[in-house]
């Protein structure tokens, strides 16, 4: 086994062992290679996982890389988990998240202004799920709390970073 092949297998072992997304710098330092080499290794491993006869995929996120099942296997893997694990966000939650994602950091009043409804409970919910966080206070009367999205938000929607979001459709048609 050549060096690159053995490093790749080590990378696979690391990703299998680690539950959370693993940062590229960390991989590089553990395997004693440069960040660029680690990046190339990840790319290679990811390609291998793309093969049809593999059930695992390598997913890249802002926080790092992580192993996960392939989407096509969902209907089977699902059976392992209890029913409530498959729940989705409510419309109100999605709407509020969208406003925060694009306008962050943003105050509750600004969110409510756009939605036209009280958003206390939905914000509470999103905070509890760690999809948003309080990110300081606005320098205006009352010093309202500002909300921003979290790394968990990116992970939940499978986004690498906030810049990846498609532009808002603000034009009239």
């Amino acid at each position, binding site marked *: 086994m050549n060096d690159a092949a053995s490093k790749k297998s080590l990378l696979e072992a690391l*990703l*299998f062992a*680690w*539950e*959370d997304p693993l940062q590229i710098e960390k991989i590089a330092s553990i395997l004693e290679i440069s960040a660029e080499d680690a990046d190339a290794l990840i790319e290679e491993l990811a390609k291998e996982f793309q093969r049809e006869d593999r059930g695992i*995929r390598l*997913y890249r996120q802002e926080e790092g890389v*992580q*192993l*996960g*099942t*392939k*989407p*096509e296997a*969902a209907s089977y*893997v699902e059976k392992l*988990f209890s029913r*409530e*694990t*498959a*729940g*989705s*966000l*409510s*419309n*109100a*939650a*999605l*709407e509020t*998240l*969208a*406003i925060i*994602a*694009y306008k962050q950091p943003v105050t509750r009043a600004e969110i409510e202004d*756009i*939605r*036209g*409804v*009280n958003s206390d409970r939905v914000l509470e919910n999103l905070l509890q*799920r760690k999809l948003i966080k309080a990110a300081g206070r606005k320098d205006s009367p009352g010093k309202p709390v500002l909300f921003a999205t979290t790394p*968990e938000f990116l*992970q*939940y*929607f*499978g*986004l690498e970073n906030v810049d990846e*979001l*498609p532009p*808002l*459709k*603000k034009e*009239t*048609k």
Partner: protein
Amino acid sequence: MSYVVKLPVYEGPFELLYDLVRKQEIDIWSVSVTEITAQYLDYLRLMEEFNLEIAGEFLVMAATLLRLKSRMLLPANSEAAVVEETGEGLFSIHSSEELIRRIIEYRAFKLAANYFQKREEEQQKIFFRSTGDPKIMYVTRQETFFFREGMLEKLVSAMKGIMQRKLTREKEPHIEPMEEYNLLERKNLIIRRLSQRQKAVYLDSMLETRSPAEIVTTFIAVLDLTLQKKVRVWQQYNLGPILIEIIPSAFKVGKKEEGNAGNKERETHE
């Protein structure tokens, strides 16, 4: 044969407005306020018919739309049109352009929410190696179904019966009267009690009801009296009960001072 009617549930007034505009399938800028107001009110009426609770924001929007509509009926330069309305609590929408701009803004985020929903769906097909919690979400999607052809009437009358029984059986809603504590009165009370005793007492003994309002008022009163050096407060050991004692000497001097100070401190009523 009965069939099911699904009444969409809107998160808020802007979602309803956006949906109404969308159904017209016309350019958003050619939307007529009169038309949209009528449709909006129709929907609220429908909700009422189904005995659905109408959130306050929907009514506020109805009022806002009606104000907008009536304002547009007035000639542009008439005196009434110029008068600045306070319209407190209403949405600050004063022209049809503003209304449309708000709907467009809402639409942008609504579309973004749809995008997030799609991503969520895709993402939920992936099970990460992690045992992490992000997969544990509650099902909160809401949809309301209604049955027609007699079913609805039966349902409504059954519901009414239940409500009727509940209302007559249960007590009237009861609200505790708001207790009023006055800082000045509380200070006087403390001084009066302390000068009767002429010795240290537990701060706790100043409390009667132990309601949060009373505790807060008493606490502020004691702080204030300490600041004015009229009482002394201490603990015999760490975290021990708080003792309070009057300072008689300071009190005699205080009398004179208070005499020429003239204006009494302002007291806030809680």
